[in-house]
């Protein structure tokens, strides 16, 4: 009897360790969501997809006014044109992706076991360009960003479902790297992402209110009124890193892709609502 119980326990061990590999991120996510919900008890979970406008009433009114006719619609239109465009050999960008248009955005970022790294939507689009023997687009190019705007628009209302598979240790490692990045202080101002967007969330930095990290990835790319253009999530990362006076990493660098992976996982269960409009 004792023996078989021990055997049973032993046989459970691999299962338990395997579960632990995914339980980590899931525990992190639950704690993350709980934290923001307790900080803002009047804000419904789904509202966090709206970023700062979930918690700032006056700014929300102005945002809704912009959303009456948001300038990113030009980018969505341009993105759709590029997406549909037949290339010299008759192929289309869409041919690289198996899913229907609305399912493409939610499939990224994902961990590619074969490559051993996180693949984001922007990277996947450029990979496609390469298989079609076309020059890749720079990651800050209007073309690439407008395509992501179109795919974000097509995915509106779909849930964020970032996956970390238990049988891919690399996925968990990438997630952990993103998490470490998020919580590490950097730069001359000695700030971690979390210092502003967790600990001090909702407070003012000069005239800006700090947005909650829960939902940070759902609405990109965003039209920035200040710039008059649509920018990518990685351009925003770059801006934040620069704001704390650290040298930014390259767009789509491993550091930023891992950070995107971590932040996307934290936003699981929210709805995609990009492209967004921000001041």
């Amino acid at each position, binding site marked *: 009897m004792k023996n078989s119980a021990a055997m049973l326990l032993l046989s459970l061990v691999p299962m338990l360790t395997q579960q632990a590999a995914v339980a980590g991120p899931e525990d992190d996510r639950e704690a993350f969501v709980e934290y923001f919900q307790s900080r803002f008890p009047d804000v419904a979970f789904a509202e966090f997809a709206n970023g700062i406008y979930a918690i700032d009433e006056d700014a929300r009114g102005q945002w809704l006014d912009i959303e009456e006719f948001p300038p990113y619609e030009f980018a969505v239109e341009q993105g759709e044109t590029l997406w549909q465009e037949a290339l010299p050999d008759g192929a289309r960008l869409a041919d690289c992706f198996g899913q229907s248009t609305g399912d493409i955005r939610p499939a990224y970022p994902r961990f590619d076991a074969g490559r051993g790294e996180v693949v984001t939507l922007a990277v996947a689009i450029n990979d496609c360009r390469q298989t079609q023997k076309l020059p890749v687009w720079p990651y800050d190019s209007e073309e690439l960003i407008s395509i992501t705007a179109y795919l974000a628009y097509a995915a509106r209302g779909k849930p964020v479902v970032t996956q970390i598979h238990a049988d891919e240790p690399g996925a968990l490692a990438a997630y952990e790297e993103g998490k470490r990045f998020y919580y590490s202080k950097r730069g001359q101002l000695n700030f971690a992402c979390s210092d502003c967007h967790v600990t001090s969330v909702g407070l003012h930095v000069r005239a800006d209110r700090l947005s909650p990290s829960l939902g940070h990835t759902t609405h990109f790319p965003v039209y920035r*009124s200040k710039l008059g253009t649509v920018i990518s999530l990685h351009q925003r990362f770059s801006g*934040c890193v620069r704001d704390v006076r650290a040298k930014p990493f390259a767009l789509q660098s491993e550091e930023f892709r891992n950070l995107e992976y971590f932040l996307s996982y934290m936003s699981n269960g929210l709805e995609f609502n990009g492209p967004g409009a921000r001041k």
Partner: protein
Amino acid sequence: MDVGRRLLLKAGVAFAALAALPRTLLAAAWPEKAFAATEAGAAMSTLFGTNQATPSAEIKLKVPEIAENGAVVPVTISTTLENVESISIVVEHNPRPLAASFEIPAGTLPNVSSRIKMGETSDVIAVVKTDTGIYSTSKQVKVTIGGCGG
């Protein structure tokens, strides 16, 4: 919540791009002098022949209390005054206070929305010209300088 999703509903109107055709109608000349004025009073005098406007509770001016971004301040003006000929937006502390002026022909509702730039905290004045006179209402909009904007 649904605000975002209804934005691009394709059901609205089909529109087609046309090649740039010569313009046909130009109701009135662009009021260059009024736009060049560097003071609110001067801009109004140039535009209306007087800088005296009667305060009116019948004009509704919707602006934010604190502009999220001085480069994009949403402004909506509507009025229950009758026989409106024009609606203008004057930003007192802008280097050129007259921001925009809308001519309202008969049949068009005195209800307009736009987005304007503001250099600093200032009164925004909605000026309505009717067949009986010049009326206005104003509200202060605070403009602060931001840094991040996440």
